[in-house]
């Protein structure tokens, strides 16, 4: 069934969008990522104009994250205190990121920068996670070996300590604030919720348990992407509500299924799957940059200079 999108001004198959939303929703619920880093390139591929794809994707992320976070709240696997601290940093970072994005846009080549950002960050995070979770899986297979005790590093030496009961942590608020800020900046530049950076950062830098990380990540993504949606809707007029509704119907259902799958899986397996997915997207983007494209020319909107 073809449907015409009023803002994107293209006609697309409604069932295709429902399916895409569903798949990305499942991943979102399983891993605590918004799914923007997967969905945005997919939307480009089916012919949605990039500006509309990025803005509309934010609406879908709000919906599937909200759906996912409700499921996690019932299981008490959301650290609201930690989420709020990360969010404060995230919103400041997002505002900084938008300013930075507009500056880079005035220099040109912003598309390339966004793609390089993706390749570099996805590559590093995916690679590190893959190696770490691979080791964890091998360790768990050897009987008698005990998990390594948590080290007391810099994270524990800083002032302004706070108790995060759900995560079982007693650490300074400075590291989560800084992580939130950095992720906020990157999220604004790359046009995503930032879950795929936030999740590994919470696991490896803050030492939070994987089960809590997912719900907490989803919690703060809701607010960051809601903020982005409003920015896009009021400044660029690129939010396509019809496209958003089609994507989020699939997305919210997928998120519920994903959350249930995620709870049943072992943390190491969950991490290695996320790592593999991140590396796959990274590889695809790197491939596109390196291989000669079949069409060297592209069309853009003229008359703005």
């Amino acid at each position: 069934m073809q449907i015409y999108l009023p803002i994107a001004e293209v006609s697309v198959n409604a069932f295709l969008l429902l399916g895409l939303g569903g798949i990305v929703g499942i991943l979102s619920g399983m891993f605590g990522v918004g799914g923007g880093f997967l969905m945005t390139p997919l939307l480009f591929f089916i012919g949605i104009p990039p500006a509309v794809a990025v803005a509309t994707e934010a609406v879908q992320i709000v919906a599937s994250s909200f759906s996912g976070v409700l499921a996690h709240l019932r299981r008490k696997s959301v650290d609201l205190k930690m989420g709020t601290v990360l969010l404060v940093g995230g919103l400041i970072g997002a505002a900084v990121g938008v300013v930075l994005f507009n500056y880079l846009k005035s220099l040109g080549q912003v598309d390339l920068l966004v793609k390089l950002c993706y390749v570099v960050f996805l590559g590093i995070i995916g690679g590190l996670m893959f190696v770490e979770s691979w080791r964890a899986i091998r360790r768990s297979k050897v009987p008698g070996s005990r998990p390594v005790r948590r080290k007391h590093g810099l994270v524990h030496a800083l002032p302004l300590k706070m108790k995060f009961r759900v995560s079982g942590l007693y650490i300074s608020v400075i590291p989560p604030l800084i992580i939130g800020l950095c992720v906020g900046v990157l999220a604004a530049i790359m046009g995503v919720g930032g879950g795929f950076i936030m999740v590994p950062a919470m696991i490896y830098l803050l030492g939070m348990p994987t089960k809590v990380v997912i719900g907490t990540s989803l919690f703060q993504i809701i607010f960051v992407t809601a903020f982005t949606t409003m920015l896009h809707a009021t400044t660029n007029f690129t939010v396509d509500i019809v496209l958003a509704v089609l994507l989020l119907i699939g997305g919210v259902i997928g998120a519920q299924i994903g959350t249930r799958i995620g709870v049943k899986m072992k943390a190491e397996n969950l991490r290695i799957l996320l790592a593999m997915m991140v590396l796959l997207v990274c590889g695809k983007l790197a491939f596109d940059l390196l291989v000669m494209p079949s069409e060297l020319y592209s069309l853009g909107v003229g008359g703005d200079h």
Partner: protein
Amino acid sequence: MLRMIAVLFLLVTPLGAEEIVLGLSRDEVAITANFNGSEVMIFGAIKRDAPAPQGGPLEVIITLAGPLEPVLVRRKERVLGIWVNTDAVEVDAAPSFYAVATSAPMRDVLTSVEDLRYGISIPRAIRSVGAPDTVQNSETFTQALIRIRAGSQLYQILDSTVDIEEETLFRGQITLPAALTEGDYTAHIYITRDGVVVDDYETSIAVYKAGLERWLYEMSRNQPFFYGLMSLAIAISAGWLASAAFRVFQR
């Protein structure tokens, strides 16, 4: 119909001249939610006061053009191993949609001088002042524009698709693709003999969004803040609804 008859009576044509009388299957195209392209039938008759003049056969060209808009064409080049947009050429005015249908192969129907004068073929319908001096092969940018738009059915060459009967009645059909831009589309009909335009006729077809599509589009432009809030409200309630529904199922 009454208006067409009135036009027929009112027109006083010089002796021996040939003139177009036109009909359209539709003079407006409404884009609704389930819009999936549209067919436009353009038909008409040649009116003359005297017997058809001697010379080459009568030929008909029908063009349908969307609104003109500037387009920025970028070219990728390999820099340090990766493919990067380097040169860009701005095409000053290119129609968002352009179809040209003829009654015989284009080269038999129209001389290049007449094409230049009336701007009928696709390359002539695109206006480009010229590229900056730093860009080499700037004409390849216009060719790329035509190639990309032709690939998505936005530019169409429909050679020998117009039917002519008895040198009097003609009929052509143009298919509008689903991905259309709003605006006033111009249908242009030319009749030629020996490649020279004898008469031309212009009319417009309004293409506009209708119903829910119109309402949403206007709201996103006029009340962007509330449009954004509405999007978020839909997102939050859909998220809650799915969560609530799944909880019911699990019991």
